[in-house]
Protein backbone atom coordinates (compact mmCIF):
# COMPACT_ATOMS: atom_id res chain seq x y z
CA UNK A 1 0.00 0.00 0.00
CA UNK A 2 1.01 3.59 -0.50
CA UNK A 3 2.17 5.93 2.26
CA UNK A 4 0.92 9.04 0.48
CA UNK A 5 -2.30 11.03 0.61
CA UNK A 6 -5.52 9.42 1.75
CA UNK A 7 -3.96 5.96 2.08
CA UNK A 8 -1.43 7.31 4.59
CA UNK A 9 -4.25 8.89 6.60
CA UNK A 10 -6.28 5.67 6.55
CA UNK A 11 -3.26 3.68 7.73
CA UNK A 12 -2.55 6.16 10.53
CA UNK A 13 -6.18 5.97 11.62
CA UNK A 14 -6.01 2.16 11.61
CA UNK A 15 -2.81 2.01 13.67
CA UNK A 16 -2.20 5.33 15.44
CA UNK A 17 0.28 3.77 17.88
CA UNK A 18 2.91 2.88 15.26
CA UNK A 19 5.89 5.26 15.18
CA UNK A 20 7.48 3.28 12.33
CA UNK A 21 4.49 4.20 10.15
CA UNK A 22 5.01 7.85 11.09
CA UNK A 23 8.65 7.66 9.95
CA UNK A 24 7.62 5.88 6.75
CA UNK A 25 5.17 8.70 5.88
CA UNK A 26 7.86 11.32 6.54
CA UNK A 27 10.44 9.55 4.36
CA UNK A 28 10.42 10.65 0.71
CA UNK A 29 10.13 7.79 -1.79
CA UNK A 30 8.29 4.51 -1.77
CA UNK A 31 7.45 2.15 1.07
CA UNK A 32 9.68 -0.54 -0.46
CA UNK A 33 12.60 1.88 -0.60
CA UNK A 34 12.05 2.62 3.11
CA UNK A 35 12.20 -1.10 3.86
CA UNK A 36 15.38 -1.53 1.82
CA UNK A 37 17.09 1.33 3.59
CA UNK A 38 16.11 0.07 7.05
CA UNK A 39 16.74 -3.62 6.52
CA UNK A 40 19.60 -3.28 4.06
CA UNK A 41 18.27 -5.76 1.53
CA UNK A 42 15.64 -5.69 -1.22
CA UNK A 43 12.02 -6.40 -0.35
CA UNK A 44 11.36 -9.75 -2.00
CA UNK A 45 7.76 -10.49 -0.97
CA UNK A 46 4.53 -9.80 -2.80
CA UNK A 47 3.76 -6.11 -2.73
CA UNK A 48 0.86 -3.85 -3.59
CA UNK A 49 -2.51 -4.26 -5.13
CA UNK A 50 -3.07 -7.13 -7.56
CA UNK A 51 -2.65 -6.11 -11.19
CA UNK A 52 -6.05 -7.57 -12.05
CA UNK A 53 -7.73 -5.50 -9.37
CA UNK A 54 -5.89 -2.35 -10.50
CA UNK A 55 -7.01 -2.98 -14.06
CA UNK A 56 -10.60 -3.53 -12.95
CA UNK A 57 -10.55 -0.31 -10.92
CA UNK A 58 -9.10 1.70 -13.81
CA UNK A 59 -11.64 0.25 -16.25
CA UNK A 60 -14.52 0.97 -13.87
CA UNK A 61 -13.44 4.60 -13.57
CA UNK A 62 -12.91 4.90 -17.31
CA UNK A 63 -16.43 3.56 -17.97
CA UNK A 64 -17.93 5.83 -15.34
CA UNK A 65 -16.28 8.99 -16.75
CA UNK A 66 -16.85 8.20 -20.44
CA UNK A 67 -19.38 10.15 -22.50
CA UNK A 68 -19.43 13.13 -20.11
CA UNK A 69 -19.88 10.66 -17.25
CA UNK A 70 -23.08 9.22 -18.69
CA UNK A 71 -23.22 6.29 -16.25
CA UNK A 72 -22.60 8.55 -13.27
CA UNK A 73 -25.24 11.01 -14.45
CA UNK A 74 -27.70 8.15 -14.64
CA UNK A 75 -26.64 6.80 -11.23
CA UNK A 76 -26.91 10.16 -9.41
CA UNK A 77 -29.93 11.59 -11.28
CA UNK A 78 -32.52 10.55 -8.68
CA UNK A 79 -30.32 11.70 -5.78
CA UNK A 80 -29.99 15.10 -7.47
CA UNK A 81 -33.67 15.18 -8.43
CA UNK A 82 -32.84 15.80 -12.10
CA UNK A 83 -33.06 13.99 -15.40
CA UNK A 84 -29.68 12.41 -16.34
CA UNK A 85 -29.38 14.73 -19.35
CA UNK A 86 -29.73 17.79 -17.13
CA UNK A 87 -26.95 16.80 -14.74
CA UNK A 88 -23.89 19.02 -15.32
CA UNK A 89 -20.50 17.36 -14.92
CA UNK A 90 -17.00 18.83 -14.78
CA UNK A 91 -14.06 16.46 -15.13
CA UNK A 92 -11.00 18.18 -13.69
CA UNK A 93 -8.74 15.66 -15.40
CA UNK A 94 -9.77 17.40 -18.64
CA UNK A 95 -8.58 20.71 -17.23
CA UNK A 96 -5.29 19.43 -15.81
CA UNK A 97 -4.47 15.76 -16.35
CA UNK A 98 -1.65 14.09 -14.45
CA UNK A 99 -0.60 13.16 -10.95
CA UNK A 100 2.35 15.52 -10.47
CA UNK A 101 2.10 18.17 -7.78
CA UNK A 102 1.65 21.07 -10.20
CA UNK A 103 -1.38 19.36 -11.77
CA UNK A 104 -2.78 18.60 -8.30
CA UNK A 105 -2.35 22.22 -7.24
CA UNK A 106 -4.05 23.44 -10.42
CA UNK A 107 -6.98 21.08 -9.72
CA UNK A 108 -7.05 22.23 -6.08
CA UNK A 109 -7.40 25.82 -7.25
CA UNK A 110 -10.29 24.93 -9.59
CA UNK A 111 -11.98 22.83 -6.89
CA UNK A 112 -11.83 25.75 -4.45
CA UNK A 113 -13.42 28.06 -7.03
CA UNK A 114 -16.22 25.58 -7.70
CA UNK A 115 -16.96 25.03 -3.98
CA UNK A 116 -17.21 28.79 -3.52
CA UNK A 117 -19.34 29.29 -6.65
CA UNK A 118 -21.87 26.71 -5.43
CA UNK A 119 -22.10 28.34 -1.98
CA UNK A 120 -22.61 31.75 -3.56
CA UNK A 121 -25.41 30.44 -5.77
CA UNK A 122 -23.41 30.81 -9.01
CA UNK A 123 -23.66 28.09 -11.69
CA UNK A 124 -21.67 25.07 -10.53
CA UNK A 125 -21.53 21.48 -11.77
CA UNK A 126 -23.61 18.84 -10.02
CA UNK A 127 -20.76 16.33 -10.19
CA UNK A 128 -17.07 17.20 -10.06
CA UNK A 129 -14.81 14.37 -11.26
CA UNK A 130 -11.31 14.02 -9.77
CA UNK A 131 -11.40 17.13 -7.58
CA UNK A 132 -8.39 17.88 -5.41
CA UNK A 133 -8.47 18.71 -1.71
CA UNK A 134 -5.77 19.30 0.85
CA UNK A 135 -5.59 18.42 4.53
CA UNK A 136 -3.08 20.57 6.41
CA UNK A 137 -1.12 19.47 9.44
CA UNK A 138 0.96 21.82 11.57
CA UNK A 139 4.04 23.49 9.99
CA UNK A 140 6.97 21.14 9.81
CA UNK A 141 8.01 18.29 7.53
CA UNK A 142 5.03 16.95 5.57
CA UNK A 143 2.78 19.90 6.40
CA UNK A 144 -0.17 18.68 4.33
CA UNK A 145 -1.73 15.64 2.73
CA UNK A 146 -3.24 15.75 -0.74
CA UNK A 147 -6.68 14.15 -0.65
CA UNK A 148 -8.33 13.31 -3.96
CA UNK A 149 -11.86 11.88 -3.84
CA UNK A 150 -13.08 10.40 -7.10
CA UNK A 151 -16.11 12.69 -7.04
CA UNK A 152 -17.79 15.59 -5.32
CA UNK A 153 -21.57 15.56 -5.56
CA UNK A 154 -23.64 18.67 -4.99
CA UNK A 155 -26.15 18.20 -2.23
CA UNK A 156 -29.55 19.38 -3.52
CA UNK A 157 -30.53 20.68 -0.07
CA UNK A 158 -27.81 23.14 0.93
CA UNK A 159 -25.42 23.85 -1.96
CA UNK A 160 -22.50 22.02 -0.40
CA UNK A 161 -20.69 19.11 -1.99
CA UNK A 162 -20.23 15.66 -0.50
CA UNK A 163 -17.33 13.35 -1.32
CA UNK A 164 -17.95 10.23 -3.35
CA UNK A 165 -15.74 7.27 -4.17
CA UNK A 166 -15.95 4.69 -6.91
CA UNK A 167 -15.27 1.13 -5.79
CA UNK A 168 -14.84 -1.65 -8.28
CA UNK A 169 -15.26 -4.39 -5.61
CA UNK A 170 -17.67 -7.04 -6.71
CA UNK A 171 -20.70 -6.56 -4.44
CA UNK A 172 -24.12 -8.14 -4.51
CA UNK A 173 -27.20 -6.12 -3.62
CA UNK A 174 -24.89 -3.14 -2.98
CA UNK A 175 -23.63 -4.70 0.29
CA UNK A 176 -19.99 -5.34 1.16
CA UNK A 177 -17.99 -7.09 3.84
CA UNK A 178 -17.34 -5.53 7.26
CA UNK A 179 -13.59 -5.17 6.70
CA UNK A 180 -13.96 -3.48 3.31
CA UNK A 181 -16.67 -1.19 4.64
CA UNK A 182 -14.48 -0.08 7.57
CA UNK A 183 -11.66 0.83 5.17
CA UNK A 184 -13.84 2.77 2.73
CA UNK A 185 -15.51 4.63 5.60
CA UNK A 186 -12.07 5.78 6.74
CA UNK A 187 -11.31 6.89 3.17
CA UNK A 188 -14.53 8.87 3.03
CA UNK A 189 -13.73 10.22 6.52
CA UNK A 190 -10.40 11.63 5.27
CA UNK A 191 -12.11 13.11 2.22
CA UNK A 192 -14.87 14.68 4.28
CA UNK A 193 -12.40 16.15 6.79
CA UNK A 194 -10.42 17.70 3.92
CA UNK A 195 -13.65 19.05 2.42
CA UNK A 196 -14.70 20.54 5.76
CA UNK A 197 -11.33 22.24 5.97
CA UNK A 198 -11.75 23.71 2.47
CA UNK A 199 -15.20 25.10 3.34
CA UNK A 200 -13.86 26.47 6.61
CA UNK A 201 -11.35 28.60 4.64
CA UNK A 202 -14.05 30.79 3.11
CA UNK A 203 -17.38 30.07 4.83
CA UNK A 204 -17.43 29.16 8.50
CA UNK A 205 -21.23 28.87 8.44
CA UNK A 206 -21.29 26.01 5.94
CA UNK A 207 -22.77 22.91 7.51
CA UNK A 208 -21.33 19.78 5.95
CA UNK A 209 -23.29 16.60 6.74
CA UNK A 210 -21.12 13.75 8.05
CA UNK A 211 -21.89 11.66 4.97
CA UNK A 212 -20.14 10.38 1.92
CA UNK A 213 -21.28 8.47 -1.12
CA UNK A 214 -20.03 5.16 -2.41
CA UNK A 215 -20.59 3.82 -5.88
CA UNK A 216 -19.87 0.12 -6.27
CA UNK A 217 -19.73 -1.80 -9.51
CA UNK A 218 -22.40 -4.35 -10.31
CA UNK A 219 -21.20 -7.97 -10.27
CA UNK A 220 -21.89 -8.49 -13.95
CA UNK A 221 -19.79 -6.06 -15.90
CA UNK A 222 -18.57 -2.72 -14.71
CA UNK A 223 -21.72 -0.63 -14.51
CA UNK A 224 -22.25 1.38 -11.31
CA UNK A 225 -24.79 0.39 -8.68
CA UNK A 226 -27.10 3.03 -7.22
CA UNK A 227 -25.00 5.31 -4.98
CA UNK A 228 -24.96 4.38 -1.33
CA UNK A 229 -24.90 7.11 1.33
CA UNK A 230 -22.64 6.30 4.28
CA UNK A 231 -22.55 7.93 7.69
CA UNK A 232 -18.86 8.70 8.18
CA UNK A 233 -18.84 10.62 11.47
CA UNK A 234 -16.82 7.78 13.05
CA UNK A 235 -14.42 7.76 10.11
CA UNK A 236 -13.80 11.52 10.44
CA UNK A 237 -13.02 11.11 14.14
CA UNK A 238 -10.66 8.19 13.46
CA UNK A 239 -8.80 10.29 10.87
CA UNK A 240 -8.48 13.15 13.35
CA UNK A 241 -6.95 10.68 15.83
CA UNK A 242 -4.62 9.45 13.08
CA UNK A 243 -3.44 12.97 12.27
CA UNK A 244 -2.88 13.73 15.96
CA UNK A 245 -0.81 10.53 16.17
CA UNK A 246 1.17 11.55 13.08
CA UNK A 247 2.02 14.90 14.69
CA UNK A 248 3.31 13.06 17.80
CA UNK A 249 5.35 10.64 15.67
CA UNK A 250 6.72 13.50 13.59
CA UNK A 251 7.85 15.30 16.72
CA UNK A 252 9.53 12.16 18.06
CA UNK A 253 11.27 11.39 14.75
CA UNK A 254 12.46 15.00 14.46
CA UNK A 255 13.79 14.97 18.02
CA UNK A 256 15.77 11.81 17.30
CA UNK A 257 17.06 12.34 13.79
CA UNK A 258 18.78 15.72 14.13
CA UNK A 259 18.39 16.53 10.45
CA UNK A 260 19.15 13.03 9.15
CA UNK A 261 16.65 11.05 7.12
CA UNK A 262 13.76 9.48 9.08
CA UNK A 263 14.77 5.88 8.29
CA UNK A 264 18.01 6.33 10.25
CA UNK A 265 16.17 6.46 13.60
CA UNK A 266 13.81 3.53 13.07
CA UNK A 267 15.63 1.34 15.62
CA UNK A 268 14.73 3.88 18.32
CA UNK A 269 11.06 4.07 17.39
CA UNK A 270 8.23 2.07 18.87
CA UNK A 271 6.44 -0.26 16.46
CA UNK A 272 2.87 -1.29 17.11
CA UNK A 273 2.48 -4.61 15.40
CA UNK A 274 -1.08 -5.81 14.79
CA UNK A 275 -2.60 -8.58 12.68
CA UNK A 276 -3.69 -6.23 9.90
CA UNK A 277 -0.07 -5.05 9.40
CA UNK A 278 0.64 -8.35 7.64
CA UNK A 279 -1.71 -7.33 4.81
CA UNK A 280 -0.88 -3.66 4.62
CA UNK A 281 2.73 -2.89 5.54
CA UNK A 282 6.13 -3.89 4.15
CA UNK A 283 7.62 -3.54 7.63
CA UNK A 284 5.21 -6.07 9.16
CA UNK A 285 7.68 -8.97 9.44
CA UNK A 286 10.39 -6.66 10.76
CA UNK A 287 8.03 -5.34 13.46
CA UNK A 288 6.80 -8.84 14.22
CA UNK A 289 10.34 -9.94 14.99
CA UNK A 290 10.41 -7.26 17.65
CA UNK A 291 7.46 -8.83 19.45
CA UNK A 292 8.74 -12.39 18.96
CA UNK A 293 8.48 -14.43 22.16
CA UNK A 294 5.92 -11.91 23.44
CA UNK A 295 2.14 -12.20 23.56
CA UNK A 296 1.69 -9.75 20.66
CA UNK A 297 3.14 -12.37 18.32
CA UNK A 298 0.03 -14.52 18.94
CA UNK A 299 -2.27 -11.85 17.48
CA UNK A 300 -4.27 -8.78 18.47
CA UNK A 301 -6.52 -10.50 21.04
CA UNK A 302 -3.63 -12.21 22.88
CA UNK A 303 -1.72 -8.94 22.85
CA UNK A 304 -4.67 -7.08 24.36
CA UNK A 305 -5.24 -9.67 27.10
CA UNK A 306 -1.64 -10.48 28.02
CA UNK A 307 -0.06 -7.08 27.32
CA UNK A 308 3.69 -7.27 26.71
CA UNK A 309 4.10 -10.46 28.77
CA UNK A 310 6.69 -12.88 27.41
CA UNK A 311 5.34 -16.20 26.16
CA UNK A 312 7.66 -18.19 28.44
CA UNK A 313 6.16 -16.40 31.47
CA UNK A 314 2.61 -17.04 30.22
CA UNK A 315 3.51 -20.72 29.77
CA UNK A 316 5.00 -20.82 33.27
CA UNK A 317 1.81 -19.31 34.71
CA UNK A 318 -0.21 -21.96 32.93
CA UNK A 319 1.88 -24.90 34.09
CA UNK A 320 2.27 -23.50 37.61
CA UNK A 321 6.07 -23.22 37.34
CA UNK A 322 5.83 -19.46 37.87
CA UNK A 323 3.90 -17.83 40.69
CA UNK A 324 1.64 -14.89 39.64
CA UNK A 325 3.17 -11.56 40.65
CA UNK A 326 -0.10 -9.64 41.03
CA UNK A 327 -3.88 -9.92 40.76
CA UNK A 328 -3.83 -9.39 37.01
CA UNK A 329 -1.39 -12.28 36.52
CA UNK A 330 -3.39 -14.41 38.95
CA UNK A 331 -6.48 -13.87 36.80
CA UNK A 332 -4.54 -14.66 33.64
CA UNK A 333 -3.07 -17.80 35.25
CA UNK A 334 -6.53 -19.04 36.21
CA UNK A 335 -7.84 -18.58 32.67
CA UNK A 336 -4.75 -20.22 31.20
CA UNK A 337 -5.14 -23.22 33.51
CA UNK A 338 -8.81 -23.53 32.48
CA UNK A 339 -7.79 -23.39 28.86
CA UNK A 340 -5.06 -25.98 29.41
CA UNK A 341 -7.55 -28.34 31.05
CA UNK A 342 -9.97 -27.91 28.15
CA UNK A 343 -7.18 -28.84 25.77
CA UNK A 344 -5.68 -31.61 27.99
CA UNK A 345 -2.34 -29.88 28.59
CA UNK A 346 -0.79 -31.36 31.73
CA UNK A 347 0.24 -29.21 34.67
CA UNK A 348 3.74 -29.66 35.97
CA UNK A 349 3.92 -31.86 38.98
Amino acid at each position, binding site marked *: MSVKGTTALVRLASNPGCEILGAMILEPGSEKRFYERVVGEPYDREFGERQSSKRRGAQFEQNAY*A*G*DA*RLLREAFASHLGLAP*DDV*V*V*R*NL*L*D*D*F*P*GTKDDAR*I*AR*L*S*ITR*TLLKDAREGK*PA*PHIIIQPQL*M*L*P*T*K*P*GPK*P*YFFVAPDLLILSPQNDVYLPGDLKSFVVRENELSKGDLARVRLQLGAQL*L*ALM*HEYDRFDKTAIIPASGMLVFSKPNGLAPHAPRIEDVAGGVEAI*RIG*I*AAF*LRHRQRVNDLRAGAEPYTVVADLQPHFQDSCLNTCVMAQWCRQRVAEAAGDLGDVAGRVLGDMELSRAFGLMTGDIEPADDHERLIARHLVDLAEQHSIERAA
Partner: protein
Amino acid sequence: MSEEIDIEALKLQEAALQRQLAELREKLAKAEKGKSRASEGGRPLRAMVLDLLAEAGYPLNSLLLASLMRPLRGRDIPSTRFGTLSNDEMKSYDSSRPRPVYLCHCLTYDQGQAVKRFWARSDWPLASRIMGPMSGRILFLRGAAWTITLARAVDRGERSADNPEILNYVAADQARDAGLAVKRGEFPYDDWLAEIHMTIERFGDEDRATREKSAELLSAHLSDRDQLFGSRQPLVSLPGSSAAWRSAVE
Protein backbone atom coordinates in the same frame (compact mmCIF):
# COMPACT_ATOMS: atom_id res chain seq x y z
CA MET B 1 24.44 -39.13 -15.59
CA SER B 2 23.28 -39.07 -19.24
CA GLU B 3 19.99 -37.56 -18.09
CA GLU B 4 21.91 -34.71 -16.40
CA ILE B 5 23.84 -34.01 -19.61
CA ASP B 6 20.58 -33.89 -21.57
CA ILE B 7 19.09 -31.37 -19.15
CA GLU B 8 22.14 -29.14 -19.46
CA ALA B 9 21.98 -29.35 -23.25
CA LEU B 10 18.30 -28.51 -23.20
CA LYS B 11 18.97 -25.53 -20.95
CA LEU B 12 21.59 -24.23 -23.36
CA GLN B 13 19.22 -24.74 -26.25
CA GLU B 14 16.48 -22.90 -24.38
CA ALA B 15 18.79 -19.95 -23.66
CA ALA B 16 19.83 -19.79 -27.33
CA LEU B 17 16.18 -19.81 -28.44
CA GLN B 18 15.32 -17.10 -25.96
CA ARG B 19 18.16 -14.96 -27.32
CA GLN B 20 16.90 -15.54 -30.84
CA LEU B 21 13.35 -14.64 -29.82
CA ALA B 22 14.52 -11.43 -28.17
CA GLU B 23 16.47 -10.47 -31.30
CA LEU B 24 13.49 -11.25 -33.48
CA ARG B 25 11.15 -9.18 -31.33
CA GLU B 26 13.56 -6.26 -31.38
CA LYS B 27 13.81 -6.48 -35.17
CA LEU B 28 10.00 -6.66 -35.47
CA ALA B 29 9.48 -3.65 -33.18
CA LYS B 30 12.00 -1.63 -35.23
CA ALA B 31 10.33 -2.67 -38.48
CA GLU B 32 6.86 -1.75 -37.19
CA LYS B 33 8.10 1.61 -35.96
CA GLY B 34 9.81 2.22 -39.29
CA LYS B 35 6.66 1.25 -41.16
CA SER B 36 4.40 3.60 -39.23
CA ARG B 37 6.92 6.45 -39.58
CA ALA B 38 7.24 5.70 -43.28
CA SER B 39 3.46 5.61 -43.78
CA GLU B 40 3.26 9.10 -42.24
CA GLY B 41 6.45 10.16 -43.95
CA GLY B 42 7.89 10.79 -40.46
CA ARG B 43 5.39 13.60 -39.91
CA PRO B 44 5.52 15.21 -36.49
CA LEU B 45 2.62 14.77 -34.09
CA ARG B 46 1.91 18.50 -34.20
CA ALA B 47 1.17 18.44 -37.92
CA MET B 48 -1.01 15.35 -37.62
CA VAL B 49 -3.06 16.88 -34.77
CA LEU B 50 -3.52 20.12 -36.72
CA ASP B 51 -4.77 18.11 -39.72
CA LEU B 52 -7.17 16.04 -37.66
CA LEU B 53 -8.59 19.16 -36.00
CA ALA B 54 -9.00 20.87 -39.37
CA GLU B 55 -10.81 17.82 -40.67
CA ALA B 56 -13.08 17.51 -37.62
CA GLY B 57 -13.82 21.24 -37.42
CA TYR B 58 -14.31 21.07 -33.64
CA PRO B 59 -12.03 20.87 -30.62
CA LEU B 60 -11.05 17.28 -29.85
CA ASN B 61 -10.07 15.53 -26.63
CA SER B 62 -6.49 14.20 -26.49
CA LEU B 63 -7.81 10.77 -25.44
CA LEU B 64 -9.87 10.58 -28.64
CA LEU B 65 -6.98 11.93 -30.73
CA ALA B 66 -4.67 9.24 -29.32
CA SER B 67 -7.19 6.46 -29.94
CA LEU B 68 -7.66 7.63 -33.56
CA MET B 69 -3.96 7.99 -34.39
CA ARG B 70 -3.43 4.24 -34.36
CA PRO B 71 -6.19 3.15 -36.75
CA LEU B 72 -5.86 6.20 -38.99
CA ARG B 73 -2.11 6.80 -39.06
CA GLY B 74 -0.58 3.71 -37.49
CA ARG B 75 1.00 5.70 -34.67
CA ASP B 76 0.86 4.88 -30.97
CA ILE B 77 0.88 8.10 -28.98
CA PRO B 78 1.51 7.89 -25.22
CA SER B 79 -0.74 10.23 -23.23
CA THR B 80 2.26 12.12 -21.79
CA ARG B 81 3.21 13.16 -25.33
CA PHE B 82 0.36 15.67 -25.39
CA GLY B 83 1.75 17.41 -22.30
CA THR B 84 5.07 17.90 -24.10
CA LEU B 85 3.24 19.06 -27.22
CA SER B 86 1.44 21.72 -25.19
CA ASN B 87 4.69 23.04 -23.69
CA ASP B 88 6.42 23.02 -27.09
CA GLU B 89 3.61 24.99 -28.65
CA MET B 90 3.76 27.67 -25.94
CA LYS B 91 7.54 27.93 -26.34
CA SER B 92 7.11 28.21 -30.08
CA TYR B 93 4.55 31.02 -29.63
CA ASP B 94 6.96 32.89 -27.35
CA SER B 95 9.86 32.52 -29.77
CA SER B 96 10.70 35.15 -32.38
CA ARG B 97 9.59 33.03 -35.37
CA PRO B 98 5.79 33.19 -35.72
CA ARG B 99 3.88 30.26 -37.21
CA PRO B 100 0.79 30.59 -39.38
CA VAL B 101 -1.26 28.45 -37.01
CA TYR B 102 -0.79 27.17 -33.47
CA LEU B 103 -2.26 24.29 -31.59
CA CYS B 104 -4.06 25.68 -28.56
CA HIS B 105 -6.43 24.65 -25.78
CA CYS B 106 -10.09 25.27 -25.13
CA LEU B 107 -10.80 27.85 -22.42
CA THR B 108 -13.28 27.79 -19.54
CA TYR B 109 -16.19 30.16 -20.14
CA ASP B 110 -15.96 31.92 -16.78
CA GLN B 111 -12.22 32.20 -16.01
CA GLY B 112 -10.64 31.73 -19.43
CA GLN B 113 -8.36 29.03 -18.06
CA ALA B 114 -6.98 26.28 -20.28
CA VAL B 115 -8.79 22.95 -20.50
CA LYS B 116 -5.68 21.04 -21.39
CA ARG B 117 -7.21 17.87 -22.75
CA PHE B 118 -9.26 19.73 -25.36
CA TRP B 119 -7.24 20.84 -28.39
CA ALA B 120 -8.14 23.48 -30.94
CA ARG B 121 -6.52 25.57 -33.68
CA SER B 122 -5.54 29.21 -33.27
CA ASP B 123 -7.22 30.13 -36.59
CA TRP B 124 -10.67 29.25 -35.22
CA PRO B 125 -12.86 31.96 -33.69
CA LEU B 126 -12.55 32.28 -29.92
CA ALA B 127 -16.21 31.31 -29.34
CA SER B 128 -15.60 27.89 -30.87
CA ARG B 129 -12.73 27.29 -28.41
CA ILE B 130 -14.66 28.11 -25.26
CA MET B 131 -16.16 25.49 -22.98
CA GLY B 132 -19.43 26.27 -21.23
CA PRO B 133 -21.08 24.00 -18.62
CA MET B 134 -22.52 21.68 -21.30
CA SER B 135 -19.71 21.98 -23.86
CA GLY B 136 -17.91 18.91 -22.52
CA ARG B 137 -20.89 16.78 -23.51
CA ILE B 138 -21.42 18.55 -26.85
CA LEU B 139 -17.74 18.17 -27.77
CA PHE B 140 -17.77 14.52 -26.74
CA LEU B 141 -20.84 13.93 -28.94
CA ARG B 142 -19.32 15.83 -31.86
CA GLY B 143 -16.09 13.86 -31.51
CA ALA B 144 -18.10 10.63 -31.40
CA ALA B 145 -20.08 11.64 -34.50
CA TRP B 146 -16.91 12.52 -36.35
CA THR B 147 -15.29 9.18 -35.45
CA ILE B 148 -18.35 7.30 -36.67
CA THR B 149 -18.34 9.37 -39.87
CA LEU B 150 -14.67 8.45 -40.42
CA ALA B 151 -15.39 4.76 -39.88
CA ARG B 152 -18.32 4.97 -42.30
CA ALA B 153 -16.19 6.70 -44.94
CA VAL B 154 -13.50 4.01 -44.66
CA ASP B 155 -16.16 1.29 -44.81
CA ARG B 156 -17.56 2.81 -48.02
CA GLY B 157 -14.08 3.07 -49.52
CA GLU B 158 -14.23 6.88 -49.55
CA ARG B 159 -11.02 7.21 -47.55
CA SER B 160 -8.20 5.02 -46.33
CA ALA B 161 -7.08 4.04 -42.84
CA ASP B 162 -4.11 2.13 -41.52
CA ASN B 163 -6.37 -0.24 -39.63
CA PRO B 164 -10.08 -0.03 -40.56
CA GLU B 165 -11.10 -2.77 -38.14
CA ILE B 166 -9.71 -0.93 -35.13
CA LEU B 167 -11.33 2.28 -36.38
CA ASN B 168 -14.69 0.50 -36.36
CA TYR B 169 -14.15 -0.55 -32.76
CA VAL B 170 -13.16 2.99 -31.73
CA ALA B 171 -16.39 4.21 -33.38
CA ALA B 172 -18.41 1.53 -31.57
CA ASP B 173 -16.80 2.51 -28.24
CA GLN B 174 -17.80 6.12 -28.85
CA ALA B 175 -21.36 5.04 -29.65
CA ARG B 176 -21.50 2.93 -26.48
CA ASP B 177 -20.16 5.83 -24.38
CA ALA B 178 -22.90 8.00 -25.84
CA GLY B 179 -25.45 5.50 -24.51
CA LEU B 180 -26.38 3.93 -27.84
CA ALA B 181 -27.10 0.25 -28.40
CA VAL B 182 -24.00 -1.54 -29.68
CA LYS B 183 -23.94 -5.17 -30.82
CA ARG B 184 -20.74 -7.10 -31.42
CA GLY B 185 -19.73 -7.00 -35.07
CA GLU B 186 -22.52 -4.63 -36.14
CA PHE B 187 -21.81 -1.04 -37.11
CA PRO B 188 -25.06 0.85 -37.92
CA TYR B 189 -23.24 4.14 -38.60
CA ASP B 190 -26.30 6.06 -39.84
CA ASP B 191 -28.51 5.09 -36.89
CA TRP B 192 -25.79 6.07 -34.44
CA LEU B 193 -25.25 9.41 -36.17
CA ALA B 194 -28.97 10.23 -36.22
CA GLU B 195 -29.29 9.65 -32.48
CA ILE B 196 -26.16 11.62 -31.63
CA HIS B 197 -27.25 14.60 -33.74
CA MET B 198 -30.61 14.64 -31.96
CA THR B 199 -28.86 15.00 -28.57
CA ILE B 200 -26.52 17.69 -29.89
CA GLU B 201 -29.51 19.68 -31.17
CA ARG B 202 -31.15 19.52 -27.74
CA PHE B 203 -28.28 21.37 -26.03
CA GLY B 204 -26.52 23.05 -28.96
CA ASP B 205 -28.27 26.45 -29.00
CA GLU B 206 -27.89 27.12 -25.28
CA ASP B 207 -24.25 26.06 -25.40
CA ARG B 208 -23.52 28.30 -28.40
CA ALA B 209 -25.14 31.31 -26.69
CA THR B 210 -23.02 30.77 -23.53
CA ARG B 211 -19.82 30.47 -25.56
CA GLU B 212 -20.49 33.54 -27.71
CA LYS B 213 -21.29 35.68 -24.67
CA SER B 214 -18.18 34.46 -22.91
CA ALA B 215 -16.01 35.07 -26.01
CA GLU B 216 -17.02 38.74 -26.02
CA LEU B 217 -15.97 39.14 -22.39
CA LEU B 218 -12.79 37.09 -22.58
CA SER B 219 -11.53 38.71 -25.78
CA ALA B 220 -11.73 42.07 -24.02
CA HIS B 221 -9.80 40.89 -20.96
CA LEU B 222 -7.30 38.28 -22.10
CA SER B 223 -4.06 38.90 -23.98
CA ASP B 224 -3.59 37.23 -27.39
CA ARG B 225 -1.37 34.61 -25.76
CA ASP B 226 -3.86 33.88 -22.99
CA GLN B 227 -6.63 33.52 -25.57
CA LEU B 228 -4.65 30.58 -26.96
CA PHE B 229 -3.12 28.95 -23.89
CA GLY B 230 -5.39 30.16 -21.11
CA SER B 231 -5.18 32.73 -18.34
CA ARG B 232 -2.80 31.98 -15.54
CA GLN B 233 -4.06 30.04 -12.54
CA PRO B 234 -4.32 32.02 -9.29
CA LEU B 235 -1.48 31.34 -6.86
CA VAL B 236 -2.18 28.70 -4.22
CA SER B 237 -0.58 29.15 -0.83
CA LEU B 238 0.58 25.79 0.46
CA PRO B 239 0.51 24.98 4.18
CA GLY B 240 3.79 24.85 6.02
CA SER B 241 5.06 28.19 4.84
CA SER B 242 3.76 30.05 7.88
CA ALA B 243 3.19 29.24 11.54
CA ALA B 244 -0.28 30.80 11.22
CA TRP B 245 -1.57 27.76 9.35
CA ARG B 246 -4.10 25.81 11.34
CA SER B 247 -3.99 22.05 11.42
CA ALA B 248 -7.01 19.96 10.50
CA VAL B 249 -7.04 18.56 14.04
CA GLU B 250 -7.34 21.97 15.68
